[in-house]
């Protein structure tokens, strides 16, 4: 079953809020890390939260092209689908 992208967006907003990113609540898929003032450590925390919440493993290489909330949502959805499609 495909992951609900709205659910991922909400998780990202919650996590950004937890790490005290200004404007976390108003973040949209178009919001970039630069606009949100998300630094590399914030991103590490966000990734850990997404890994825990969706039971996925995000590699450092996967993170390199991730520049916006939308990129993070798409990556999470892709990894969840890959996991669910994999043999048990």
């Amino acid at each position, binding site marked *: 079953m495909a992951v609900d992208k709205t659910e991922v967006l909400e998780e990202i907003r919650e996590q950004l809020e937890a790490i005290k990113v200004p404007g976390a609540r108003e973040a949209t898929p178009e919001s970039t890390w630069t606009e949100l003032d998300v*630094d590399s*450590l914030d991103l590490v*925390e966000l990734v850990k939260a997404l890994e825990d919440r969706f039971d996925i493993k995000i590699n450092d290489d996967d993170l390199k092209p991730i520049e916006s909330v939308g990129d993070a949502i798409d990556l999470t959805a892709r990894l969840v689908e890959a996991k669910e499609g994999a043999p048990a």
Partner: protein
Amino acid sequence: MSAPEGAVALITGGARGIGAAITERLKADGFTTVTLGRTSGDVQADVGDAESVQAAFEQVRERFGPVLVLINCAGERQDGLAIRLSADQWESVVSTNLNGAFHCTRRALDDMLKARWGRIVNISSVVAERANPGQANYGAAKAGMLSMTRTIAREMARKGITCNAVTPGVIETDMTTDVADKLVAGVPAGRIGRPEEVAHAVSFLCSEGAEYVNGATLAVDGALAA
């Protein structure tokens, strides 16, 4: 911001010497102290082994709670002039003193980030900044700790986490009984230090008042390195 009440303070090498004094002091300060040792202490781990450290941290979280204060005090010495120092002596000392501090710090940061509060104190040594012949391995590891301290401090400064170092001079412990007499003559204070004096400095660095002290090295050495 003050420490969450009863926060867990993990002291590596906390069963004896300087570590034991730090454990007593932090307990008196209101922390829930947990000691980690290779064979002694509340939990056991080889700090130089990342997997062993991870297992120990899982045990600590389960039994006591998240680690919000970490004192990296586990240490070992294997002295010898560099020309006679074996690769094993080098690697063992660097592994315990430097790699061990890194492995423990990495694990503790997970808990500290979640809490938005943390205190890390690395117990380095005066030899990190003032060379002592016969301790190339120990001095290099302890100097590495100082650089790591400053880096972690900068990385975590926005997260309510501080990382500082203490550089004890000649302190009365099992580790220094063989060298204390020889070194005391060079100590401007004219005496060797007590473990409790190091513990007092650590206590300050873990206190509410030290929230803005980050990336610092506090010498407790009777002016030996001054």
